[in-house]
Structures are given as structure tokens and as C-alpha cells.
């Protein structure tokens, strides 16, 4: 197993992936999120977003206070489709 530093478990995104994209000029958290698909897997960003925010702050010299957090979306935890339509007990 290689020594990867995993940022996002859902999509196997590494620290190096994040840094490379920032180096290519993408420094908006919303853009990073979509290009790396961080926060878009089943964990919905719970582990990765804070790490990406800190890498972004470090690499751009911005303070974390200045970087807006990507909006949390409904449902805030994964829910089975059958539960939402009300028929999970059949």
C-alpha cells in the first residue's frame, strides 16, 4: 500500500491532489469542491472539507475566517429513497 495522505475517503482524494489543483490556479473552495468532488460523496464533506479549508488557507495565505464554508445540503445525512417516499416497511 502506498503512503497516500487521504483527505477525502469517499473519492480517495489526497493532499497532493488538492495542492496540485490550488497550484493550477483554482483557489475558490466552491470550485475546488466540484473539481475534486470533495464533500460530494456519501460522507457529505464531514471529514474532508475542514482539511481542504486548512490546506487552502495555508497555500494562499488567507485566513480561514475569509473562506466561506460550502453550504450544507438536505438531507444532512444519507437517507434511503424508500424511506423518503414512505414505503420502507413493505
Amino acid at each position: 500500500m502506498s503512503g497516500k495522505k487521504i483527505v477525502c475517503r469517499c473519492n480517495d482524494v489526497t493532499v497532493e491532489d488538492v495542492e496540485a489543483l490550488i497550484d493550477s490556479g483554482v483557489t475558490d473552495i466552491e470550485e475546488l469542491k466540484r473539481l475534486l468532488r470533495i464533500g460530494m460523496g456519501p460522507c457529505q464533506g464531514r471529514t474532508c472539507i475542514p482539511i481542504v479549508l486548512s490546506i487552502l488557507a495555508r497555500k494562499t495565505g488567507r485566513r480561514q475566517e475569509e473562506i466561506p464554508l460550502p453550504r450544507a445540503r438536505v438531507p444532512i445525512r444519507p437517507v434511503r429513497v424508500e424511506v423518503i417516499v414512505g414505503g420502507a416497511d413493505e
Partner: protein
Amino acid sequence: MSKIAVIGGGIIGVATAYELAKLGEDVILFEKNYFGSGSTFRCATGIRAQFTDEANIRLMKHSVERWEGLEEELGSDIVFRQTGYLFLATSEEEVEAFKANIRLQNKFGVPTRLIDMDEAREIVPILNTEPFLAGAWNPKDGKANPFKTLFAYLFRARELGVDARGHTEVIGFERAGDAITAVKFRSNGKVESVRVDAVLNAANAWAPLINEMAGLSRGLVPITAYKHQLVKTEPLEPGQVEPLVCPPSWNDAYIIQDGEDGGIICGAGIEHKARSLEDYEPTYDFLRGVLEYAVRIAPPLRYAHVVRQWAGFYAKTPDSNPAIGKLLENFYIAAGFSGHGFMMAPAVAQAMAELISKGRSRVPLDWEWYDPYRFERGELRSSAFQIG
């Protein structure tokens, strides 16, 4: 070389900036938020030529051809996949209507055909065949990744010298007679201005505000933002719902598997007028409503988990066709895409760039059909079918 300002960092604005730069123009591009933040990054990823009128069929046939070469042209993976669109009929009358559409589409070279439900099930292994009689199937339709596509255009545009500015808001124009002479903009609280030879309003839902800055009435091109929502499942293995599958009689409900992560995107025509241009609040009725349709289209979807619901705008004109053309001597518009901006972008961007740069275009775009002054004249087009 002229200085051209493009307003709006969505797919239309970014792609047009790229096309203009390709033609040798000096382009400055303004996006008031982050690139793609308006409608592009909120879209359902679909691309189709299955329209029901000549203008849209011809434009989209050309657009699909552009899509086919885009990955190579832009030099990066945009996850363009020709996995088709499958419309499903629930009544004999609908089957007849499908046949008429197919004849029209075939006439312009779009290879749609009517298929039975056995074939439909081969294409979509988890499809519920029972409620449907037949399908209209065009294997050339498809999907692409909106994030990667927009950035592929943006990176290439920048390489060609486009000055693309995110988080920079246009706040006014200087006008001399019928021409715009300068654009005023604000970034990080600082106001600047730039002299320009032409301006493209590609602000979609925000386009009426830009028109107003140019001294035109907001109602000249009446665009209203309607909230359209999507629900997406967790990533799944590809091959389960590759095409966009839509029974139009079920409130335009549809499902399509994301070409990149395999999550299934679910949409429907459950529409809400946006309370403001910041109103991206998802609604509860949509969440339940869309999934009620989705599980009837593909019952095994019941076991998938929903991971998010979001809203974006259909920037709608009264006839659901975009406004594309010239508004003033050097002020152009390509907006009001009513949900079709992403799929139309490669064709519209090329047409618009050629119009601005050369005064005419070889793209089969029916300028009259999309004429931005048609609303003022009261000449509405037949409503474009709004899916995906």
C-alpha cells in the same frame, strides 16, 4: 482586435469568451460570484437533440457535434458520454406524438427511433417496463460533467489570453448613443472601469439587471427565475441508468446517472418561482415528489441513499426559448436558456462569437427564432420542451 466584455461566468459566458479569443479578440470576462455558480454547476448534465421544433433540433444537432470534439479541442477530460436520452410513453396518444417528433428529428439528421420496452430494459437494466408502452431513443444524446467542462473552457480561454475575473461584479456601463463604451465593475470593494468595443450579456437569470444597466427596460427580455431542483444519490457503479430516462407525462420526471461518480440524479417539473435571485432553498415537496416518480421509473432506486438536494434556476422566457442576438449597436445577449444553456453552450458560444467578431455565423442558429426583440413584438415561439 477589439476589446470585448463578457458578463457572466457560466458555461455560455466562459465558452463564448473562449470562442472570441480563438478568433483573436481581446476578452475580459466578469463573474460576480465563483465560476459556474449561477445555473451551470447546478444543472442535470444532460445533452440532447431530441427537441420538437426545427430551430432547436438543428441548433442541438450542431451542438452535439461540437460536444463530440470538445474533449480533444480543449485538451482535457470533460466526461462527455453519448449514453442517450430515452423518453417513455405512457399512452397510445403519446406514442403517436413520439412518432411525429421522431420524423421531424430524423428529417434533420438526428437518429432518434422508437423502441419497445424489451430494448429499453437492455439499455436501462433497472427500468420498470410495466407502465410504459414505448420509448423514443436517441443514442447520440448524452451528458457531460458541468464542472470539468466549464473549467476546460476556462483554462483554455485563459491560455488564449482571456482576462477572466471571478468575484467581480459589473455595476454599470458608459453609453454613447446606441453603443456601450465602458464597463464599470467592482472587486474586493474596489471599483474600476474598462473601455470596450462590445459587450455580451450572458448573465442568464441576472440578464434583465444587466440590460437595465445598459439603459434597456428589464421587461424587454423578460426572464424569470424559476427554481428547479435536483436530488442525487450516493455514488453507484456505472451502467445502471446511463441515459437520461424520462416519461414526459409524469410531470417531466427524469433520472440519469452522473457520468463521473455514478450517482443518480433525479429531476422533475415541480417548479417554484424564485423569491429572489438568492433563493436557492430546496423545498420539501420536491424531495418527496421527485423520488415518488423516480422509484416508479426504476424501482431498485429505493435502496439507494439520497445524499443531497439542491436548487438552481431555469432562467425562463415566456416561450422557454433563449434570447440570442443583438440588443444595441455593440451590446449582445445570450440568456434566458430556460434550462438548456449547458447543452447548447458549444453551439451558441461559437455562433455568438462569430456574430460579435465577424457580424455573421456559419452555425445553423436560427437568429429569427431566438430574436431577443420577439417578446416586445409579441411573437412567442412554440414552447421548447424543458428537460435536463
